[in-house]
């Protein structure tokens, strides 16, 4: 690709990744969440694939696969956390600690440190989607090259 595309990609790549992270992080407060944020972050990977040669990311397939599995495992394990009550019960909400603050009443801009297991699940799904979509995009980008297996 041309210098213009590469330069813009260099600038946009961290921006897109950060925006993806933002969407995941605020999933329990605003529209968005794990899948949307993961998809935004994966678009940053797609940008890199378009601007630069996909061959540079070829060795990362194993990493993507491991990250995807980890995301899936983390999600189900978060569900198991609730087994004292029921599966998926939100035991961390309102219990203090990480994401454990109670939700303030009335209109307010939103408190990030609330909602218990939900933000953690958003992160798990976000990583799973980022890795899964990244792997899909990478495989399609590699198709048609010299050694596309």
């Amino acid at each position: 690709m041309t210098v213009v595309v590469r330069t813009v990609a260099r600038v946009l790549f961290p921006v897109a990744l950060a925006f993806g992270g933002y969407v995941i992080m605020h999933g329990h407060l605003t529209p968005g969440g794990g899948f949307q944020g993961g998809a935004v972050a994966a678009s940053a990977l797609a940008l890199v694939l378009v601007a630069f040669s996909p061959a540079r990311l070829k060795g990362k397939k194993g990493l993507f696969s491991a990250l995807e599995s980890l995301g899936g495992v983390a999600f189900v394990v978060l569900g198991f956390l609730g087994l004292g009550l029921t599966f998926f019960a939100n035991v961390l909400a309102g219990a203090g600690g990480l994401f454990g603050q109670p939700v303030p009443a009335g209109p307010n801009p939103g408190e990030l440190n609330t909602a218990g297991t939900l933000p953690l699940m958003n992160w798990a799904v976000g990583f799973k989607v980022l890795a899964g979509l990244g792997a899909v995009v990478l495989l399609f980008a590699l198709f048609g090259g010299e050694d596309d297996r």
Partner: protein
Amino acid sequence: MIGNLPFVACMVLIALGMWTLLFKRNLVKLVIGVGLIESGVNLFLVALGYVREGVPPIYTYAPAGAPMVLPTPQALTLTSIVIGLATTALMLAFAVVIYRHKGTLDARKIRDLRG
């Protein structure tokens, strides 16, 4: 009448998708046909949850007394979009593999399995 426009649009999308599936023979176009039907169904779900003059269903943002749009159809749509992404990716991957073996995407020329 104008309120029904989204429903008309989604039926048009579904009809277009069915037409594509029935009359097109290119594998990628078949995938696009499934995608069209999916968009139609998703649009239908989102349109179902719309409430006139409604505000986004975010508990801490909503002014008192304002009607909220239904959040459930949005969650359903999102789930269905995620599933659609997975099926589309899988079908395209199969199309790629078929192309590698046969050098064509024409469904009429890919007939190893019949009878």
